[in-house]
């Protein structure tokens, strides 16, 4: 058996002193502890601090073990980035989290491309050259893949950012023959990487190949993401997150750096698992999400379902709702994407407080894909100071609708649609949904009867006997209810 590729790898990280390797390991362990902290809100802040410590250790170790001649320029670069980062982090509205994550994400992708080019231009410093001064074959593969994945992450995340922030229409853009174009481009990228790896003057030469890999990867990132609808963007962001993790791990192999390897595995798993959780909660296959085209008729921002039959429904006012809510013993509130759009979380919390004062039991029920990113609703409710022990997951609360007096749906739609349980032809069939039909009374806040949820389908809940539609902007409606509760 030949293991030449293994032997070639023996040089990895060869120049790093033992204490630095230990420091990178410690840094990796801190990153593990950072994610571990997120297992409960109580430990999460300590977790985040562990993440910072880990990053600090990695930074300092790298600086100390390398030439410090450019330390002032480096410090300036860190300071510039740091200030920009902190300012963005402070200013951003909580409702803008999905696009912020996508935006930050594009930066990681671009940074990976930049590092890849740096390693290609200056392979000695990265310790990836063989005796003849050429870049090692394994390192060339890692380098090519790193640049390609980084570039895809960059352009894909930019599109995701634009779609999520509404700067670009959320509806899928379907080019004709796109599958052929995409496959062709992908094949070209892989071919170029292979060519670069075996190229005799390769190594630090063959610049056109490296640049072509980057350009093609930028293009394919763009092509791959535009056919995907706006509300599927979270899956895309997670997927790209996962890819970028694996790219960081590949870079870690090149540098023999355990902090990078561990981080790569953590981030790679995180992205993959979140994508999986979202797909499962929507009962759609990952492939169908990535193939795109979903949400073609109705974008994330609403839009009409067109030729729907008119069915009778009841409409109510804020006063009606306030009266019924006061009388109730138990109210379950189901927030959705519309709550985020309307920024209604603070008013909602006030309403909850008022009801609790009057002796009503109030619980919040969160669907795994309510809103536009995993945990989106939880963050918004936390922002409005709703205690997290009043907020429940789908499977923990779904059995309680039978015992509740009022199900209060605010800006949610698909996640309460019974068609998911009954109608095999529905695009959301099989998705687990809240059993709001079991509640004695349902209030449903949305702006108009025309608007639909992300999946673009009608919802039988509108027309149920016990449903009262509250047609208005979520924030205004809740504020009026709060007034009527006084």
């Amino acid at each position, binding site marked *: 058996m030949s293991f030449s*590729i293994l032997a070639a790898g023996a040089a990895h990280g060869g120049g790093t002193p033992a204490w630095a390797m230990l420091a990178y390991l410690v840094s990796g362990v801190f990153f593990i502890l950072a994610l571990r902290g997120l297992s409960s*809100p109580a430990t999460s802040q300590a977790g985040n601090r562990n993440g910072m410590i880990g990053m600090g250790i990695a930074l300092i170790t790298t600086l100390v073990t390398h030439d410090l001649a450019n330390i002032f320029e480096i410090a300036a670069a860190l300071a510039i980035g740091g200030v920009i980062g*902190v300012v963005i982090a402070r200013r951003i509205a909580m409702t803008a989290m999905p696009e912020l994550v996508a935006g930050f994400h594009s930066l*990681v992708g671009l940074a990976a491309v930049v590092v890849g080019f740096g390693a290609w231009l200056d392979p000695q410093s990265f310790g990836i050259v063989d005796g003849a001064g050429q870049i090692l074959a394994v390192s060339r593969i890692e380098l090519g893949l790193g640049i390609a994945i980084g570039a895809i992450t960059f352009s894909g995340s930019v599109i995701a950012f634009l779609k999520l922030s509404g700067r670009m229409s959320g509806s899928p853009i379907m080019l004709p023959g796109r599958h052929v174009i995409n496959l062709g481009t992908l094949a070209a990228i892989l071919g170029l990487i292979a060519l670069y790896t075996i190229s005799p003057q390769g190594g630090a030469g063959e610049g056109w190949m490296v640049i072509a890999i980057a350009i093609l990867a930028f293009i394919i990132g763009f092509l791959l993401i535009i056919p995907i609808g706006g509300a599927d963007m979270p899956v895309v962001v997670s997927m790209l997150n996962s890819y970028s993790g694996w790219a960081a791990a590949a870079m870690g192999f090149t540098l023999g750096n355990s902090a990078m390897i561990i981080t790569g595995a953590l981030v790679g798993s995180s992205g993959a698992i979140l994508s999986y959780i979202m797909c499962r909660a929507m009962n759609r296959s990952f492939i169908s999400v990535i193939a795109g085209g979903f949400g073609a008729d109705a974008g994330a921002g609403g839009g009409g379902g067109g030729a729907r039959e008119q069915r009778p429904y009841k409409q109510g006012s804020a006063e009606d709702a306030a009266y019924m809510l006061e009388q109730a013993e138990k109210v379950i509130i189901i927030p959705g994407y519309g709550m985020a759009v309307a920024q209604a979380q603070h008013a909602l919390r006030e309403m909850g407080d008022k009801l609790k004062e009057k002796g009503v039991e109030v619980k919040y029920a969160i669907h795994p894909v309510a809103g536009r990113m995993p945990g989106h609703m939880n963050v918004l409710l936390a922002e409005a100071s709703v205690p997290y022990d009043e907020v429940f997951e789908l499977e923990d609360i779904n059995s309680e609708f039978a015992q509740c007096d009022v199900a209060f749906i605010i800006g949610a739609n698909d996640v309460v649609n019974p068609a998911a349980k009954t109608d095999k032809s529905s695009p959301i069939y099989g998705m687990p949904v809240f059993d709001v039909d079991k509640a004695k009374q349902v209030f449903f806040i949305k702006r108009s009867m025309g608007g639909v949820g992300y999946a673009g389908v009608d919802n039988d809940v509108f027309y149920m006997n016990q449903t009262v539609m509250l047609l208005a902007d979520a924030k205004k409606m809740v504020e009026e209810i709060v007034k009527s509760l006084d």
Partner: protein
Amino acid sequence: MDFISILSIFVLACFVGYYVVWSVTPALHTPLMAVTNAISSVIIVGALIAAAEANSPIAKYLGLFGVVLASINIFGGFAVTQRMLAMYKKKGK
């Protein structure tokens, strides 16, 4: 480090990643996305090497550019995570 060691570390880290991410409570999935964003910027190590060693001026400026990009992410990512996490409170607090 030899290749097998690196591979061993990677394989085990994947198991750790799998378990540690599944143990994250769904209520904190948004902070999870933000913090993984921040830690994945550990590729700043590569940018720092390029910026510090600088056998080629283009490599140096590319490296410095990479440092700026990654540090936006690091500082921004940890700060926004911190901001979010500080909002999660228990009843009666």
